[in-house]
């Protein structure tokens, strides 16, 4: 076969192959996909005690329980994809998982990119602050904390970011990838306070009573709702999940499970 004939065969073959790869059937919705696959793929981010690693290496926590109950009710398996929190919505939009169950606070800006179900839990924001540093800089009132010499830390992309923007716009905000690093900056005395959702500030203060304290009491700010996030354009998924949440609100399972993880720290022996 001479060169020309070879080219005349290669090009159409290539075009055909590429066209076939581009052809994808339209999805009938995520519930349908889950049932066909027999498995829910859940995106989450580790936050103690919403989702964390037990000593055995498996994931445990409130969100894990919620996801497992959902899978049980749907009659399918569940697979978890831990992801960095600031990348979780882009990953959902890119179809890396079916749902996001990670204690995500329902916020209008996020709602523009993804759909939220009705709330299945509620969150409040608190601060764990460095006692010595706050005393040295004379920080007592809300106004004192709202100065450019104050350094606050948060985990990138989380709800307290808006609390800081609203209450402490003059303060410097350092965003870290993980709770541990954000807290470490405060423990080291390089930052004044770490804002995050309760019950974490309470836990941190209990664990480090000599270094940390609550400048404004426990969980004083910004109550928000935790919802499951799904991709836009899927009313069936939204309907199913909303009603599933309503059902377990009525039978008390959600409250019971929430109390188990948030009211006590009995699960600590599983992680340490």
């Amino acid at each position, binding site marked *: 076969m001479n060169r020309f004939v070879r080219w005349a065969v290669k090009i159409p073959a290539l075009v055909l192959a590429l066209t076939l790869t581009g052809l994808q059937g339209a999805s009938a919705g995520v519930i349908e996909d889950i049932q066909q696959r027999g498995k829910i793929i859940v995106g989450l981010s580790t936050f103690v005690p919403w989702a964390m690693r037990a000593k055995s290496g498996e994931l445990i926590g409130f969100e894990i329980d919620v996801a497992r109950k959902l899978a049980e009710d749907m009659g399918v398996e569940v697979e978890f994809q831990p992801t960095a929190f600031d990348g979780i919505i882009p990953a959902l939009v*890119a179809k890396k998982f079916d749902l996001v169950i990670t204690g995500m606070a329902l916020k209008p800006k996020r709602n523009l*990119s993804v759909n939220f179900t009705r709330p299945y839990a509620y969150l409040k924001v608190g601060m764990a602050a460095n006692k010595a540093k706050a005393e040295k800089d004379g920080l007592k009132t809300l106004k004192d904390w709202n100065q450019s010499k104050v350094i606050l830390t948060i985990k*990138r*992309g989380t709800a307290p970011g808006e609390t800081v923007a609203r209450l402490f716009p003059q303060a410097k905000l*350092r965003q870290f990838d993980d709770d541990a690093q954000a807290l470490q900056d405060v423990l080291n005395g390089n930052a004044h306070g770490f804002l995050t959702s309760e019950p974490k500030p309470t836990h941190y203060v209990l664990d480090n009573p000599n270094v940390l304290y609550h400048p404004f009491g426990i969980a004083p700010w910004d109550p928000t709702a935790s919802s499951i996030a799904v991709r836009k*354009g899927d009313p069936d998924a939204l309907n199913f999940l909303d009603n599933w949440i309503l059902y377990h609100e009525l039978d008390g399972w959600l409250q019971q499970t929430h109390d188990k993880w948030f009211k006590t720290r009995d699960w600590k022996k599983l992680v340490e």
Partner: protein
Amino acid sequence: MSSVASPEGDAGAPRAQSRTHSVPWWRSAWFDVVQFVLLLGLIAWFAWRGADAMGYRWQWYRVPGFFYRKVDGAIIWGPLVNGLVVTLEIAAWGLVLTLVIGLVTAILRLSDSLAGRALAVGYLEIVRNTPLLVQVSIFYFVLQPLLGFNNPLWAGIICLGFFEGAFASEVIRGGIMSVVRGQWEAGAAVGLSPSDNYRFVILPQAVPIMLPPMAGVLINLIKHSAVLSFVAVFELTTEARNLIGDTFLSFEVWFVIGIMYLCLTISLSALVAWLERRVRSRG
């Protein structure tokens, strides 16, 4: 059939067209160009197809707002511009630090002093063989409180300076060693002290040789500055990640950031290429 074989033989490059016969069309230059354009077109089409199948709503119209906004006639610079300024600051100071540390380490390594050589080799091996992320974390979370200062930007610049300084020192050492032994001896014979020898005889000859690999080290400096986003230095990558955390436009923002870094590094390459030409023409 010509009885004289063409200089490169039949399997030679089609570029040299002998005057006795021209190249067949499938080996000609224009066909090369056509193939290249087709390939680029294919890749672009593939990428666009994939993006389309994702059902993602591209919001490119929001991107200029990340660079600047006009409020009441005054321009407010957006996060990407602020981040770029900090990255340039890191690159500038990091460059100075890298060259200084590199030069000092290279000279220590080539010196007669055993302690100097041991120090240089110890530093080199430790820094070259640990990941940058680990070093940045140690500088920020461990050394900062130990040394009692609280400045993420400078912690980052110093860490990067030490990291790239190790690679730079090897480049400098290679350049110096490539200068013929005779030059050292000639300089000593004329009565120059070692430091004057370095300054007037050795380094001017070593620098043209060092420039190409040094460009690589400096480009690495700019790329590695992205790692500082791990410790909340407000450089370009940090601002990009915070922006994505706020707006969820990860595709648009990451493309733009990639292009910005590319512009930075290509400018640096061009600068070094110009320097190389200048140094060579002095000869």
